[in-house]
């Protein structure tokens, strides 16, 4: 398949390891990956903070950049993020309609219909759960809120992880509780956010895992930021970074107190 990658703004600039791993993984599975350079951001931050007017040009850029998927130039758009995929599916058209841009809203819907979060693309579209990965470490998985409750990815990420050779996958207690990130919530309600994070990191540490993984770099930035501050000795990796890992090209265990970007290959 010909798959267009929406890298997400946060991963493009802060965590390039996640989209790089997505590219490696999909190419290894025999697909062609395209990166439309006009892309920037899906608009989620502006929408969720209430700045709908400011979101419009951001959404327009995303929709126009990925519009070719609706005409069949690419077979699908993949986003290595549950919350960005959720924004594409549930917010972009609403923001366009509110601004009176019905035509753009229709295009947004057409693009959204062919846009998939990574685990959805792998399991539902490409029909694979064993991607041939090898990752010999103890890992725990945090299901991010938007992938869980907005996209309903269910156990797709876990099915992918269970198929990874030599992985020691341990269940995260209270996994479905929010980590407290919530975008600008982490700044506007920093105390509450920190209280939620304290419980999440305690649960991660209780698993004895060396790595906590998830489908969203933003949530991982939050959880990883807390673990790093605590010198907990637990690193973070995006789901794609584990699935991209093979015996020939293993993803290194991230040093627990170092930006994930530094260790991603």
């Amino acid at each position, binding site marked *: 398949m010909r798959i267009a990658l929406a*890298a997400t703004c946060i991963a493009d600039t802060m965590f390039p390891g996640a989209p790089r791993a997505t590219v490696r993984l999909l190419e290894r599975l025999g697909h062609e990956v395209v990166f439309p350079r006009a892309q920037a951001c899906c608009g989620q931050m*502006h*929408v969720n903070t209430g700045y709908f007017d400011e979101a419009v040009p951001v959404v327009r850029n995303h929709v126009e950049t990925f519009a070719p998927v609706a005409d069949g130039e690419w077979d699908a758009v993949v986003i290595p993020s549950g919350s960005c995929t959720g924004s594409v599916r549930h917010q972009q058209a609403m923001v366009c309609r509110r601004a009176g841009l019905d035509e753009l809203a229709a295009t947004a819907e057409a693009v959204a219909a062919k846009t998939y979060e990574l685990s959805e693309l792998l399991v539902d579209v490409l029909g694979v759960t064993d991607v041939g990965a090898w990752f010999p470490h103890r890992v725990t998985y945090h299901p991010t809120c938007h992938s869980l409750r907005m996209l309903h990815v269910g156990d797709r990420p876990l099915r992918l992880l269970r198929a990874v050779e030599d992985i020691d996958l341990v269940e995260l207690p209270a996994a479905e509780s929010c980590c407290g990130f919530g975008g600008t919530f982490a700044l506007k*309600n*920093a105390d509450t956010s920190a209280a939620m994070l304290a419980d999440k990191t305690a649960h991660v540490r209780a698993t004895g895992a060396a790595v906590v993984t998830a489908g969203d770099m933003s949530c991982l930035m939050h959880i990883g930021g807390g673990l790093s501050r605590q010198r907990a000795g637990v690193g973070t990796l995006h789901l794609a970074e584990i699935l991209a890992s093979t015996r020939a090209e293993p993803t290194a265990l991230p040093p627990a107190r170092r930006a994930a*970007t530094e260790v991603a290959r």
Partner: protein
Amino acid sequence: MSRTFLGLPRRLSRPDDGAPPAGADGSSEQPFGPVPHPQAPLRWGDAFPVAAHRTLQDAQLRRNLGHATQVIRAKRAAVVDEVPDWEALRDAGSALKERVMAELPELLQRLEENVTARGGVVHWARDAAEANRIVTEIARAKGADEVVKVKSMATQEIGLNEHLAAEGIAAIETDLAELIVQLADDMPSHILVPAIHRNRTEIRDIFLARMGDAPPDLSDVPRELAMAARAHLRRKFLSAKVAVSGANFGVASTGTLAVVESEGNGRMCLTLPETLVTVMGIEKLVPDFEDLEVFMQLLPRSSTGERMNPYTSLWTGVTPGDGPSEFHLVLLDNGRTDVLADEVGRAALHCIRCSACLNVCPVYERVGGHAYGSVYPGPIGAILTPQLTASTGGVSGHGDVNAALPYASTLCGACYEVCPVKIDIPSILVDLRAREVDADRSRNGVDPWAAAMKAASWVMSDGGRFGLAGRAATLAHGLGGRDGVISVAPPPASAWTRTRDLPAPPSQTFRQWWAKEHETPRTPEEER
């Protein structure tokens, strides 16, 4: 004194704040203790972030709430999982409420006709002041200086107890948790379990200090606490001439009112006194009697995690020789028609006050109900309170404390998932945030958030500009030092780094890597 009896926050205290009388002497004779309640039950205390900062430090509150919400969550999940058509029931509940909102004026008139035809008296109250005045006049006409009350959010919302007290009429809460809150001069912190922030030892202390007739050797065993309250309340049930209730449902086609409860105190209030006054929000209607079948399945499982609530009381007008001989229904607007006028926000009126959203909310679980500064806390409160108070600020008010409420959520979606009538709370929260941002656009002066969002919009709406910004960020790569993290940052990033590290930007953005690995060399003009 920064804290009052039993650790109530200072803001609930009187300015001249004497310590309330300690011990059991005399205080139980007063309908209210020395700590006055907020003037506005939908807007009190500090804005959410400030109030939450304070409640988060209360270790006992965190323990009590953490335990209680975990228990009730598990109970709800178990009884919901056993219903095979739960999702269909939710759809039915949602559709019924949508119909009620679409036909509200006609349905209200039908309700009035049917209640009147069956011997009841219907009153219309535009706001809290009107509703309070109507109830006061009825109690006065009956010569009552004491009324017994069924737990009711509508009367909490209008501050009825405080109003009656000022008029010399004592309102006695007969729901056990509501009684605990009342005795402690506290405010409710939960829609269904108003004393959820208290553990049983605290409750024992409250009873001993304030109930007057509590046995002096009272222990903190729940059964003993309930028995003490029962003995205390039984005397009130038998002597009261007037009862005041809310309503869970009002059936338009029959004029029937419904109250569901667990303790039987409601049944006592609804049947023993000669006069019954019911205050009902106008959104509590259902069109037909058989519609109750849907809600009677949804409500108990969602609220208390029970298959069926122990007591369901239904009454239609008055029946000679059976129950109250006089029945008044006060239909309360108090901002609801404003909410109804909003296409997105009106779904908040679908709420049947089950409180499932509070119990699953990770924010509520940690900060507790008082941080929301409204009798409606939690996710539903965060969308209902600012809308109900919109005419006096609320979500549209510059700097109004209630305008902080739509931001009191990570948008994790747990509330939407459990809502028995499928209110899309996260989407309404986002919509209310937008309404607030738009209302503030007319404001003079520079708002740093608005400026940042505007700048970010310009950068993030063009791949070239965004690529340049990412490349500029890589220059800050060295800020991370040896460990690659930033632990101290200036405001506003300091709100992050106070409790979390921030990774330094990478030495190469993704798109720089892509250009190198996947693209043929470009001209300098293209290579941005």
